């Protein structure tokens, strides 16, 4: 059972900086298991992130890693993918990084359906900067910039991605850690823009202020609020109120951007108009 992650880690960088009880380490382990299962070669893989707690992940893993500016990871990754379309490009980003400041790049990458796997660590808060509310912070939740309870409506990240054109949509949670592997493996294999939202817990800047006594209570909240999509669809509305489905929620084969671009290049080079 003892899974050896060390081959994929920059072991000298541990212990990592994430807070006690932050679930990002759980998801990092799942992503490494998925990359191993998908058989990606480290030399052929770039992992790109923006700014925020989740965006520190690339520093801990032994790939071609790029820690960019807040919200812009996907745009940097687009440049990499366009130049090396046969290489694997993953983006690690947070709920704020991806859908607040990074929203424009997020929706346009979805629209283009460029073959990049975007893993959004959704912990419902801006953790790195101390707990300000983000585009996914629940209504009524307390944050340092919503001290009287959040009144800002939320994005449903996956609806946003699907509406913008992403062709692989999945959701997992840190509690259902073993289930993350397959989501990420399928996302990596999928030819097109894949978005995998992973529900995470931030005990330090969210949990403490919102009646979660411990990190484990936050994990147990996930256990009670997320159901496999197969079960979710069979239950009547009153049974699924306040809950969300997880698993692979949508998948569609559509032309992938770099393939379209380089087939146009081939046509042009062969004298076509």
């Amino acid at each position, binding site marked *: *059972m003892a899974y050896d992650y060390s081959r994929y*880690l920059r072991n000298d960088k541990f212990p990592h900086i*994430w807070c006690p009880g932050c679930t990002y380490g*759980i998801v990092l*382990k799942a992503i490494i298991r998925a990359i191993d299962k998908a058989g990606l070669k480290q030399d052929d893989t770039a992992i790109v992130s923006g700014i925020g707690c989740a965006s520190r992940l690339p520093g801990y893993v032994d790939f071609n890693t790029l820690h960019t500016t807040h919200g812009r990871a996907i745009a940097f990754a687009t440049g990499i993918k366009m130049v090396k379309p046969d290489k694997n490009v993953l983006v690690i980003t947070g709920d704020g990084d991806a859908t607040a400041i990074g929203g424009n790049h997020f929706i346009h990458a979805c629209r283009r359906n460029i073959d990049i796997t975007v893993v959004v660590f959704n912990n419902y808060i801006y953790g790195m900067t101390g707990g300000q509310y983000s585009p996914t912070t629940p209504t009524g939740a307390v944050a340092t910039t919503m001290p009287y309870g959040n009144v800002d409506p939320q994005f449903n990240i996956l609806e946003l991605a699907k509406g913008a054109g992403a062709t692989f949509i999945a959701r997992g949670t840190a509690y259902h850690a*073993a289930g993350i592997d397959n989501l990420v493996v399928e996302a990596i294999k999928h030819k097109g823009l894949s978005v995998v939202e992973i529900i995470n817990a931030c005990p330090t800047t969210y949990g403490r202020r919102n009646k979660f006594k411990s*990190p484990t209570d936050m*994990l147990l909240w996930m256990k009670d609020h997320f159901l496999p999509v197969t079960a979710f669809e069979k239950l009547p509305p009153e049974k699924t109120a306040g809950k969300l489905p997880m698993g692979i929620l949508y998948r569609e084969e559509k032309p992938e951007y770099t393939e379209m671009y380089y087939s146009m290049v081939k046509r042009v080079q062969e004298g076509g108009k």
Partner: protein
Amino acid sequence: MVKTAEKMVSTENDKVKITIIPRFCKGCEICVRLCPKSVLGMEMFKVKVVDVDKCIRCGQCELRCPDFAIFIEKKD
């Protein structure tokens, strides 16, 4: 077996070996509370094996540890 230069503390019986890396453990207690058989406990803000014989080798502790601080090896 996990290759690491970190100091490791192992507790084992004929069925399982539970290994902890004290320097990595941040005392979040996730493993302690999610272990279905109360095999684990806390001591000075670090995880400790309380009763290895209760362990059913389910691996929930290793799966859920955010800090690469605990892992188990089945002995068949």
